[in-house]
């Protein structure tokens, strides 16, 4: 700075002009904070640990907290068992069409059998290869007056599945069929037998190969401990159906 060359040149017409090189350095130094900001952002994106609740660009509202790893049922406890989804293959066992009369998709229905007794038979989902059932049903006409009195019993709405006791040596049988129009009987889609001890808490997706006796492609089973607090029960049951 004390060198002779650092001294601005004096011109005859006006104030001394600084050397061009110095002006360029001043400009470059001005860009340094901006470069630092961009660099810190890029570095953070590259190396910072993921926060599962953090909103990421392009996903409005952010991602939700990841579900915990599934656990098997605990022997001796009672569980609600619900079928949330059943998907069938396009042809019924024996490579036959589902509805012979009009060629429409099957009318899916299922039952849950535990300990030798059928504990639940579902409603029918008509003309579809994928049937969806909600574990909770609420009759609004019944619920609204009760809400006014402040005494709606939510457990009474859990009427879409069976209650079982988890034991080591018993099985849960899911029978699935195509409900034919009144009087024409039913076409079996398949039967799934599961060891109760192998059931997972939460949602569990089972997939199957198409065979001469099976047209079930996929079943999503929801299993929830009956003893957990009501709020947790609702959270567990109100999770959306798996794809």
């Amino acid at each position: 700075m004390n060198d002779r060359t650092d001294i601005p040149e004096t011109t005859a017409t006006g104030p001394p002009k600084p050397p061009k090189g110095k002006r360029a350095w001043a400009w470059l130094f001005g860009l340094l904070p901006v470069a630092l900001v961009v660099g810190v952002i890029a570095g953070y994106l590259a190396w910072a640990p993921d926060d599962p609740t953090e909103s990421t660009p392009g996903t409005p509202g952010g991602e939700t907290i990841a579900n915990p790893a599934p656990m098997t049922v605990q022997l001796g406890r009672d569980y609600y068992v619900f079928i949330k989804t059943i998907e069938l293959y396009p042809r019924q066992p024996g490579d036959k069409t589902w509805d012979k009369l009009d060629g429409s998709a099957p009318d899916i229905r299922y039952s849950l059998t535990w300990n030798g007794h059928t504990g639940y038979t579902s409603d029918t989902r008509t003309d579809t290869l994928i049937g969806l059932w909600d574990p909770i049903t609420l009759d609004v006409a019944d619920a609204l007056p009760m809400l006014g009195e402040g005494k709606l019993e939510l457990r009474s709405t859990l009427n879409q599945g069976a209650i079982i006791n988890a034991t080591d040596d018993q099985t849960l049988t899911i029978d699935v069929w195509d409900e034919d129009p009144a009087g024409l009987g039913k076409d079996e889609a398949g039967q799934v037998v599961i060891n109760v001890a192998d059931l997972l808490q939460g949602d569990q997706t089972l997939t199957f190969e198409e065979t001469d006796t099976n047209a079930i492609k996929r079943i999503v089973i929801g299993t929830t401990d009956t003893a957990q607090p009501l709020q947790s029960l609702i959270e567990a049951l109100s999770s959306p159906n798996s794809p």
Partner: protein
Amino acid sequence: MSTADTPAKPKGKRMTATRLAIVANLLMLSAIGLGLGLIGPCMTIIPSAGEDLDVWVRLFEPDDLEPRTYSILGGIDTMRHSTERGSTLVAALLFGFSVIFPALKLGVMAWGTAALRLGVRPHAAVKLTSHLGKFSMLDVMVLGLLVLAIKGLPGDTELHLRWAIWAFAISILLSMAASIALHKVRPYRAEVMSDQ
């Protein structure tokens, strides 16, 4: 070169050089704080419709009650994608005053600092810095409005501030300190320059 041969630096010039070095360091620290403040987790919102209604919201719209963490940039991006009317304009304003403006302010101050240090007449840079100074609280005000808006949500919605908000605030404080120091330097430097 022996010390005897070296001409003693004027006191004002030494002070100026030291101050400019401090300003430069403050600006760089402020830039790092700004980067972290913009991209780091700024706030976590834990939605709640109130004790009585939470059960029903969980039943019908469980995703609405999931806690969400936003960075300033993430929040602006979320707002940009929102379908609500006018949200793009608000996102643009927020982007302008919380991202572009602070970065620009730091850049201009750094330019002015370097110009003074190198003996370049910093007319434009210093003039621009004093103009930008008039808007220097707008970014803080935007942040405050954001927090107030969320605090005013109905129900028991909770807002937890995270470390990035402090990084952003410290960055603004450092830039203000740098601005004050830079303006104090100016007269000394002008004298030194006139000596030359």
